[in-house]
């Protein structure tokens, strides 16, 4: 079941093409990673989802029907470049932003109380934003994003500016919101967070979507049958036993055990390799090298750019 679908989105700013036939679908209750180099068109897509700007072509669906401007009250958006009114008191400001999302005064106050207590920042209510550190401001911004219990949350680089402790706190909050049923679109350049959090990703490059799928499938797709083996024994013996369908990528000799990376050139079956190796050395560990999202990102973007020069 999809909460949000964008179908064949095109968007141009004058002569600049921001999005070219981009489609994504975000499953209900999932965390969707929206990836891409700077200037690829991610922010434009996010703004289209938020109804800040309209696509030139294409359709948007929200919760099973065509998306309307009223749906923005069910979205919470934390932009990458975010700010608050410097001279306004924290509490008033959070209340104002909650009311703009369509909450009544009473509901907003109740919900704000809950979040301020949860983050232990009740004492900040009457402080002005300019008195707070950047990390403190980010907490307030996070609260104003989730205050109206949105069904869809959009976070653009949510962890930038947070120290590791607070970044972890926010991460836990995001996971908790997901567990409570919220759907999350997540845009970041931090690939380890993507691997930690996302179920599904889409990669946008130069205004086109060039990769889309569940994260484990993508990693499987982009693995190149490389195996890492630790063994006890002689490297020369090992290398002499390998037939031409295997290539040694690197090897390392250590006092107790050696490590070798071997690529299977004409197949995917790891047993082919194990069968050969057991004759040459004592195998300590054997694992297939699965590419990290970082590797996938670089590989996909670079090969796309190379073929579209």
């Amino acid at each position: 079941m999809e909460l949000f679908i964008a179908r064949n989105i095109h968007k141009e700013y004058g002569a600049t093409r921001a999005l070219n036939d981009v489609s994504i679908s975000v499953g209900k209750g999932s965390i969707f990673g929206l990836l891409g180099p700077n200037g690829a068109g991610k922010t434009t897509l996010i703004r289209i989802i938020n109804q800040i700007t309209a696509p030139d072509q294409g359709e948007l669906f929200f919760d099973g029907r065509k998306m309307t401007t009223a749906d923005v009250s069910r979205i919470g958006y934390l932009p990458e470049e975010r700010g608050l009114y410097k001279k306004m008191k924290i509490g008033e400001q959070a209340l104002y932003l909650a009311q703009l999302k369509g909450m009544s005064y009473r509901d907003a106050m109740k919900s704000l109380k809950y979040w301020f207590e949860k983050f232990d920042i009740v004492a900040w209510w009457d402080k002005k934003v300019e008195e707070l550190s950047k990390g403190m401001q980010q907490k307030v911004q996070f609260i104003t994003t989730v205050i109206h219990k949105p069904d869809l949350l959009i976070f653009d680089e949510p962890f930038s500016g947070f120290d590791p402790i607070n970044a972890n706190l926010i991460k836990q909050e995001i996971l908790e919101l997901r567990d409570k049923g919220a759907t999350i679109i997540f845009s970041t350049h931090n690939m380890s967070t993507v691997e930690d959090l996302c179920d599904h990703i889409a990669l946008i490059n130069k205004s086109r979507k060039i990769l889309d799928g569940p994260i484990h499938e993508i990693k499987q797709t982009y693995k190149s049958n490389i195996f890492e083996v630790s063994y006890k024994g002689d490297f020369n013996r090992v290398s002499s036993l390998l037939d031409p369908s295997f290539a040694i990528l690197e090897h390392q000799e250590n006092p107790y055990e050696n490590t070798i990376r071997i690529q299977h050139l004409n197949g995917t079956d790891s047993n082919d390799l194990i069968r050969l190796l057991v004759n040459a050395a004592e195998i300590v560990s054997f694992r297939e090298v699965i590419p990290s999202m970082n590797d996938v990102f670089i590989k996909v973007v670079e090969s796309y750019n190379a073929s579209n020069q």
Partner: protein
Amino acid sequence: MNKTLIILKREYLTRVTKKSFIVTTLLVPLFMVALMVIPAWLATRDDNQERTIAVYDETNMFLGQISQEGSTKYHFVDPDTYNRLKENLAGSEFYALLYIPGNIITTNRAQLSSPKQVPFELAEQIERRLSQIVEADKRQKVISESGVPDLEEKLAAARTRISVNTMKVTEKGEEKKSSSMVAFIASYGMGFLIYFFVFMYGSLVMRSVMEEKKNRIVEVIISSVKPFELMSGKILGTALVGLTQVGIWIVLLVVGMTVVQGFFTPESAQEMGQSLLQSQPQMGAVQQSIPEAENQIAEILESIKTLNLPLIIFGFLFYFLGGYLLYSSLMGAIGAAVDNDEDSQQLVFPVTFPLILSIILLFSISKNPEGSIAFWASIIPFTSPICMLARIPYGVPAWELLLSIFLLITTLVGVIWVAAKIYRTGILMYGKKVNLKELYKWLTYRG
């Protein structure tokens, strides 16, 4: 609650509770009252400095005619003392030395020397006194030469002042008393009020938009409300701030004036008026016609009543609102289009130029409210808020007024459309130097 209303409320409350707002709101009327009260108060205070002036009179005509006036004493001296004083006036007990030459009647000149700078009023006082004495002397001679004993009375009776009553003829042919002075003041006052209001609060809108853009809070806000709602809430909220301020000023001014009137009793006011009149000898004639001046004031009050007040009030409200909306939406668009104050100045000037032009045109409109400059300036929407309003007190043909209103409304719709387009594109655009060509391009962007 409607989202525009939420924005309006915030905009209004943050402005109105600001210290700077409270301070200016209270200080401006205080300043204005002070500007009226202090000079008046100073004028009623007598010059209490005791001065003795040595007079050397070659004619012997003035002895006994001038001895003391206010705190100034006159002491006549002989030629020896005069010569001594001429050498060393600073060392003497005298403040100044007045030399009246023997031929004063023909030359009309005397000389006042002092080691200090003689106050203007004292010099005038002496001039007036001497003139009166010489004039009386001459007059006496003329009367005795002519052989008409009551010539003086006859001349006084012949003195004439004619006042022209301006009447406005309505279409039905009935004559109404009007005062061109009242029309002039009304048209200038309203023109300037609109000018200042639009300028002040238009730039307030601009700064408020720029603040949100600089803060980067705007992206969060327009993910909740439409940019148009945000802009309208801002413009209307700011208008309300302005109206509050003007309202408070009017109340404070009325209170202030009442206090001032109580402070100056009618007698002291009259004294003040007299002393002002006395200080200008050429206006001596007016001095005798204070009842006439009072009559004039009554006439002015009368002619204020004959102005078409409902039309003026309607015109004021309409052009006030129209002018404000027209310019503040453009200023809002500028605030959205630029990143910093320097860039904004470059765009503000071309936008506010028609406003400045209108004020310049006010002069020519008041000279000729029917002329072609007045006509075009009051029809073209960017100058009409000030120029048409300035013409209304003089009377404007209905079709011109309707055409002007119609054009202003149509232009307003168009300008708001353009401003909203620029606003929604500009507000999320950073690091781009904008010019008019770029702004024009934004109009073609979709949604």
